[in-house]
């Protein structure tokens, strides 16, 4: 075997929990009386990503880049148009999109989601107990005493008194509600939690409480997170690896440290420099991106970022760059013609 060959994660890696392969989600654009399909919004366009057990993978990007759609595809609130979502069930590694109805139901228990807006994701006419009780009953916890005990325990684990379970959502503040939503996601013992902007609706002083709580729970319960947010500093604080998305594609994935100090994609560089840093000592020069994000219904030809890229060269307008690992770090993937990546032929299939 060639020494230079770079190994991509596959089903034989014991610690890979979720492997997303060439996932696509297109939303049809309809027009006219007969709702004829006239085009597609390519919300998620050919994304491959793996998530290891116990790690946090951050997804960042501007609004409309498809990060929430990708999250929803992972929990299967959206049915992907094409691609595979391979998940490790015990010893077996199987595509969740090909499961039988019964297996799908069991799979839902393993993957849960925390939503962005804690005000609209709790039913105002149900108290906390009912909100927690239903999913547990549905997923086969028959003993009511046991369920109640578990709810009390869950509330305590998110630093709320157990007797709050008989209260209604309006009695809680935003931070408390988000903690309740996190506890609710955990009530069926999931392995993977997809967190969609869990702190962006919260005040700055409350954000830190929720972020720290999520980290503690991860350590305690050995959870795996897919953490979606637009705020790169929050994502960096939470994640082991960060994927930067732009117009439905992942532009770059790297360990959070190397992404900040060693960004390879011009979009990542611009995104990093656009974030206002609450310190006044070291100020880097700001890279200002021209213009707006193009429409995902009609993404630019070639590299999707070339219309706003300051390093754009001829090839960028014609050929779409491949998403490949960099030469010095096999875990650092980038999709850019200018980045030094390994040759596709060196990849082990």
């Amino acid at each position, binding site marked *: 075997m060639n020494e230079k060959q770079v190994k991509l994660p596959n089903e034989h890696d014991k610690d890979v929990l979720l492997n997303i392969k060439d996932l696509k989600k297109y939303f049809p654009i309809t027009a006219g009386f007969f709702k004829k399909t006239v085009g597609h919004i390519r919300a998620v366009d050919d994304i491959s990503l793996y998530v290891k057990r116990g790690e946090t993978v951050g997804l960042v990007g501007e609004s409309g880049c498809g990060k929430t759609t990708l999250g929803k595809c992972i929990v299967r609130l959206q049915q992907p148009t094409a691609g595979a979502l391979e998940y490790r069930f015990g010893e077996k590694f199987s595509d969740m999109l090909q499961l039988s109805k019964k297996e799908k139901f069991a799979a839902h228990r393993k993957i849960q989601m925390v939503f962005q807006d804690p005000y609209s994701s709790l039913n105002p006419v149900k108290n906390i107990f009912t909100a927690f009780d239903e999913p547990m009953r549905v997923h086969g916890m028959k003993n009511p005493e046991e369920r109640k005990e578990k709810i009390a325990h869950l509330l305590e684990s998110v630093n709320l008194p157990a007797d709050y379970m008989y209260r209604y959502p309006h009695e809680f503040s935003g931070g408390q509600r988000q903690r309740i939503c996190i506890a609710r996601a955990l009530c069926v013992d999931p392995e993977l939690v997809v967190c969609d902007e869990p702190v962006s609706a919260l005040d*700055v002083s409350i954000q830190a409480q929720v972020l720290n709580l999520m980290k503690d729970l991860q350590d305690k319960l050995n959870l795996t997170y897919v953490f979606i947010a637009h705020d790169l*500093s929050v994502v960096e604080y939470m994640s*082991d690896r960060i994927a930067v998305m732009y117009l439905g594609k992942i532009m770059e994935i790297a360990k959070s440290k190397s992404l900040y100090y060693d960004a390879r994609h011009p979009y990542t560089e611009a995104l990093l420099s656009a974030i206002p840093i609450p310190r006044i000592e070291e100020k880097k020069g700001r890279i200002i*991106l021209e213009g707006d994000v193009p429409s995902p219904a009609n993404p630019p030809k070639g590299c999707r970022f070339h219309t706003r890229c300051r390093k754009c060269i001829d090839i960028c307008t014609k050929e779409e760059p491949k998403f490949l690992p960099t030469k010095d770090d096999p875990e650092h993937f980038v999709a850019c013609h200018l980045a030094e990546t390994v040759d596709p032929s060196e990849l082990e299939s």
Partner: protein
Amino acid sequence: MSEQLNENILTLKGLKVQFRVGRRLVKAVNGVDLNVRRGKTLGLVGESGCGKSVTAHAIMRLLPKAGFIPEGEVTYYSNEGTVDILKHNPKGKTLRDLRGRQISMIFQDPLASLNPVYRIGDQIVENIRQHNRVPKEAAMKRTVEMLKQLSIPQAEKRVLDYPHQFSGGMKQRVMIAMGLINDPELLIADEPTTALDVTIQAQILELMQDLQKKLGFTIIIITHNMGIVADMADDIAVMYMGKIVEFGSKREIFLNPAHPYTKALLKSVPVLGSGSNSRLEPIRGNTPDPSEMPEGCTFAPRCDFAMDICKTDPPNFDVGGGHMSRCWLCKGGNGQ
């Protein structure tokens, strides 16, 4: 004084704003003293509900019906004379003349601040003609020039477009153009970039700084983002529960914060590049209900340094060099 004009463009003294909500009285702004230096940028930071927007609306006298100003003083020093803003009728001629010409405001949500049924150009032209006797054509020409300055491509064509044809960032540029069209001396920007993406936010902030250099107006920028004030502001006022708890130059606030709230606020946000190793230090508890304000220092229930004396309201202590802090810990003057 060597200069003719006052060094400050706007001063607030003991400003209070209250709202009648049913039988309750909500004290949104509770005695704000503030000096805004001419030609500089003042950053007003605080969490939601701390009264920063209400303060701005009170300066413009744009409070909703339920709101009233029981006491306080807002003085505006312009090159046309001094105006005591609170003495005038909010709907009267003096203030209508002031608003939009001398002091203008950019609101948080550009979508809600533009009228969807009028063309962009007409909305800006109306602004010009409200304050100046100029023919429509001249006003339109000026509008196009202004939009060009804000780097809106094809400005001649875009003035004929309706708001829904603009993207969020473009709409906010139109709002800035509208705010600056009458060459105001003071621009109040209320969370101007909160509804925008980070890359667009960077564009807008850069633009505001460039225009300020060119036209020399004063900015009050209201935000909850410490990063934005670190970029934009010369002076920073930190607000908590209707009071300014700390005021100072940007350097002082970031390098030598004196109030425990400012310190906690700086420690509770993740900083890009510091990674996940250093743990955030959250502020305990929640912001209290503004209708049931704690007695004494309003931050005391959440403060790590709370003492017995905190039950009485701390006055403003000078920490040195115009750096003020409302905390008993700063009594000695060195801000521990």
